[in-house]
């Protein structure tokens, strides 16, 4: 009973702001606002960037998780700690760090610029980089946990059947950790979709190229609060739909 009151209070605290959003949303003018120029653009950009960042995270993060979970890598604890840093780092700091590394005069950026004429800051690619930087650790941690939970003896069984390590990884390890990868992907994608601080610091806020939904929401709030509510409502809807659909297909199976 002592715990019930704070629990209810905690739930209310989590739910009430969303109720507020639903109550105050300008339902009457919603259709017009949804088709207003800029809204579709920001939504499309957000989805494209979050999905790209998730794809990059999968491509790089799954092998990284495998390295952490399955090999006797020297200094593995240090590597894991490094992977978790972006998780706890304030995103704005991440954005500054990205600028110093990949900016036109950055540690790596200056060579990218000189050699390929590539400049990441203030471009759509920059948005993807910023989102991947912040979101990838979620995926790595989730997949590493799944790999640790998966019995490595199945991989041994595959080896005795003549499977190379690569084939074993594809045909035995990956299917075994699929629910973990799905969960990690959802977390990663949701984090990328909501990413604000690193994006605005590293990629700026240019409509059409770097202005994602969260940035649009922030900007709209200063000029047109009703628009901000509509945009927020859309982000909320997208998140809930994705979460529910994935939950039923993959995550639910392991729960």
């Amino acid at each position, binding site marked *: 009973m002592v715990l019930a009151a704070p629990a209810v209070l905690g739930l209310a605290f989590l739910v009430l702001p969303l109720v507020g959003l639903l109550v105050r949303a300008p339902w009457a003018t919603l259709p017009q606002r949804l088709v207003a120029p800029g809204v579709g653009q920001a939504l499309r950009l957000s989805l494209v960037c979050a999905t790209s960042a998730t794809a990059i995270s999968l491509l790089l993060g799954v092998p990284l998780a495998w390295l952490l979970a399955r090999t006797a890598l020297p200094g593995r604890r240090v590597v894991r700690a490094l992977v978790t840093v972006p998780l706890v780092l304030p995103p704005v700091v991440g954005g500054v760090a990205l600028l110093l590394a990949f900016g036109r005069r950055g540690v790596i950026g200056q060579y990218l610029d000189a050699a390929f004429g590539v400049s990441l800051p203030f471009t759509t690619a920059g948005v993807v980089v910023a989102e991947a930087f912040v979101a990838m650790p979620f995926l790595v941690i989730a997949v590493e946990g799944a790999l640790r939970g998966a019995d490595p003896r199945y991989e041994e*069984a595959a080896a*005795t*059947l003549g499977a190379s390590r690569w084939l074993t990884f594809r045909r035995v390890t990956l299917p075994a950790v699929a629910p973990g990868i799905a969960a990690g992907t959802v977390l990663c994608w949701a984090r990328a979709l909501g990413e604000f601080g690193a994006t605005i610091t590293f990629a700026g806020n240019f409509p059409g190229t770097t202005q994602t939904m969260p940035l649009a929401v922030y900007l709209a709030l200063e000029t047109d609060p009703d628009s901000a509510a509509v945009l927020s409502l859309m982000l909320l809807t997208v998140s809930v739909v994705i979460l529910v659909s994935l939950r039923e297909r993959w995550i639910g199976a392991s729960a």
Partner: protein
Amino acid sequence: MTSTAPAGAGIRQGNAMSLHADLDVRRGARFRLRTRFDLEPGRTLALLGPNGAGKSTALRALAGLQPLAAGRIRLGDRVLDAPEDRTFVRPEHRSVGVVFQDYLLFGHLSVLDNVAFGLRARGVPRRTAQRRARDWLRRVGLADHDRRRPRSLSGGQAQRVALARALATEPALLLLDEPLAALDAGTRVHIRSELRRHLGDYPGACVLVTHDPLDAMVLADELLVVENGEVVQQGRPADIARHPRTDYVATLVGLNVYRGRAEGTLVDLVGGGTLTTAEPAHGEVFVAFPPTAVSLHAGRPDGSPRNTWPVTVAGVEQHAHTVRVRLAGTPDVLADVTPAAVAELDLTEGNALWAAVKATETHTYPA
């Protein structure tokens, strides 16, 4: 690699390779097992010992899942592991099939794809691999289970799928890790004799690891008894059962095992003598019963025992709580009696007695 037999035809020739094993395996700092043996193709060797004796570690070394600390493994002409020469062949490049204790069937693949996995991994085209996998499923009696998931199989069925999966690549060496340990008693009897039949058909060398003396007796042609990291006795199962050299072996393999020809419940033994069994059978069989099932009498006993025959005392050994008596007769037999019985009967060497065994105490297995 010369070991992968061509599709179908080359089974008999392809994997007839003898195994030379000189194993020194270690686990952690304290545990160590050393053993040496040679095994001809078509023969089955059992490593018998208590749980935690390092038998599975030896098996892992043979499979290439763990390198030897010292020694040498050779299969045919090919050295698989020799730390001295810095030779180590990775498991996927060895012609070895393994049946793991808990089978380790891939849960996300159908039964058919599980069996076809090894062939696919070795580059056999999908349709050929599936056809051969279906053949193997038929041989283990699971032809109509090909689309099932491993999770939906019974323990006995899973064991057969694991065997089919290991044999499908036609390995030169088959390794069985406690192949029957995960089964319940009823299924076990059935699967044991079935496994024996498959091992009889299998042309390669087979090493199996077990803590169950009956499994070892029924399945193996040769027996290595492992105790405290050393082999304490080595030989044919029946010889070891009759002439245990340590107390441990005596209690471990304390079984009377006979080979013979069955006609219904009557079995004519190879070494002479006849036994009546409870389970009717036909053809070549093994009959086994524990020494505790044998009772000794001064005169010919009347009543229920179906098997009675005259014997003479050949030796008496004191064990912890019982006395084991070696008796010569047709057939020879081991009997465990209580110290009280020793006093009652005159158990001096050369003394004549009657041995009796109830038919219901015997177990019969196809040879």
